[in-house]
């Protein structure tokens, strides 16, 4: 789509033109400002981590990206979120269509409790209008393979999604998000309820998925941000304090606030 939108001036060297960026995004709960004038762009085929202490607005921030924030009554968003040249907050843009292109995985695995493994993955695709069985079978298998879950569940596709382990359930949620072929995947603390083995599996999966998607991950686990992301943004009281290459942020951050946070001097 031709558009007048241009990405914000980069604070980091990015080879590929970003397909997703946010401009002066602020978000409120009632009168309380949770995200304060954040501008940054997410390069494609990279994992961007958003870190910050509890209550800094990081989850709220990524929920503004796919218009999830507005679901909560009394909330408000200002600024622009540009995906493929279009502001997702433009009048006439369907929030459902936005969420299809910007998938999301949450802190606690939340497979649909009444649905089988197969149905969990198929459900999103069904909503898009895809109904043919052969097509659906292919989508389910591809999505489960992308989420590195196929080999573990191929013989129990008809069992309830909730019968899987926590880590498998989270990968099932990733597969469900992938089934509608999003351009962007948002992960909100996806491993905080998982053990180290399941966490490693998710990180490995996300590391492979980044070759096809733009990935944004919110995490309070700084070691996870350090090892699993390419870029890191540090949020504090809703403001973006620093944004840059992960290896720089964790070895030589520019801002003292960033250094104090990542070294455990507050948080």
């Amino acid at each position: 789509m031709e558009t007048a939108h241009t990405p914000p001036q980069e604070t980091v060297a990015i080879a590929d033109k970003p397909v997703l960026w946010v401009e002066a995004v602020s978000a409120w709960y009632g009168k309380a400002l949770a995200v304060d004038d954040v501008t940054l762009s997410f390069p494609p085929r990279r994992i961007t981590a958003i870190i910050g202490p509890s209550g800094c607005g990081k989850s709220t921030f990524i929920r503004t990206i796919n218009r999830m924030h507005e679901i909560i009554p009394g909330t408000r968003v200002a600024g622009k979120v540009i995906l493929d040249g279009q502001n997702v907050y433009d009048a006439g843009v369907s929030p459902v269509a936005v969420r299809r292109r910007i998938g999301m995985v949450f802190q606690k695995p939340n497979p649909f409790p009444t649905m089988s493994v197969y149905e969990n993955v198929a459900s999103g695709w069904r909503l898009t209008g895809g109904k043919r069985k052969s097509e659906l079978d292919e989508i389910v298998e591809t999505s489960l393979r992308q989420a590195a879950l196929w080999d573990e569940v191929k013989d129990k596709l008809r069992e309830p999604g909730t019968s899987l382990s926590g880590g498998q359930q989270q990968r099932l949620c990733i597969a469900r998000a992938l089934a509608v072929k999003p351009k962007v995947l948002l992960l909100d603390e996806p491993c905080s309820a998982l053990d180290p083995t399941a966490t490693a599996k998710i990180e490995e999966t996300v590391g492979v998925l980044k070759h096809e998607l733009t990935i944004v991950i919110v995490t309070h686990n700084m070691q996870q941000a350090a090892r699993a992301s390419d870029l890191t943004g540090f949020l504090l009281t809703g403001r973006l304090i620093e944004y840059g290459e992960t290896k720089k942020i964790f070895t030589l951050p520019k801002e003292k606030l960033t250094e104090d946070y990542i070294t455990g001097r507050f948080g």
Partner: protein
Amino acid sequence: MSDPDGHLSRQYNKELTTLKDLLLEMGGGVQEALAGTIKALGERDSEIAEKLIIQDAKIDELEKRVDGLCVQILATRQPTAVDLRFLTLGLKITTDLERIGDLTVNILRMAVEVNRLPLLKKMEDLPRLAEATLKAVKGALDSFVERDAEKALDVCVGDNEVDELARDLEKELEEYMRYDAANIYRALRLILIARSLERIADHATNIAEQVVFMVRGSDIRHHGEGSRGPG
């Protein structure tokens, strides 16, 4: 720069403080031994040399404790940024300090040997070289304690002075050897002492470079090759 003791975890603060204290204890030990070489050479005091040679075992023991603590902190705290740079500095300078300790022991052993023999020449240059070397080691360790990158850079610049003093002395001693073959045994030992002092100053420069990296995050080793510039 962030407050070194400002972590939320008091135990973590304690571990980093212990590491710093151990490095300073090592630094204090090598400085004492190095200062002893000035006396051992200048005043032909072999007694102090013998005493300091025995004390080197303590430096070796400290090196092991520093290494162990660094590994423990890396494994349990996953340090980042300034703390990570401090830890890598700890691991590197402990090796430099241990090498300084060993080189100093070599000097002291040779001092004991040459002190048994008649003076080859008036013993002024070597103590002066030892003083310049001690100054470099002291400057490097002070810059570490004070987290002072400027002071550390002074040490790097001052290394040239030590190199020049050592080179001049070596040339002079070569003359002694040419003049009379009977001088070779003593002159050779004095040259080896000068070389050891020069290498000690090189280790002091290594420490100073690590301090610059710890404070600024910039790598100044190898005179700008691959340097990341000031941080």
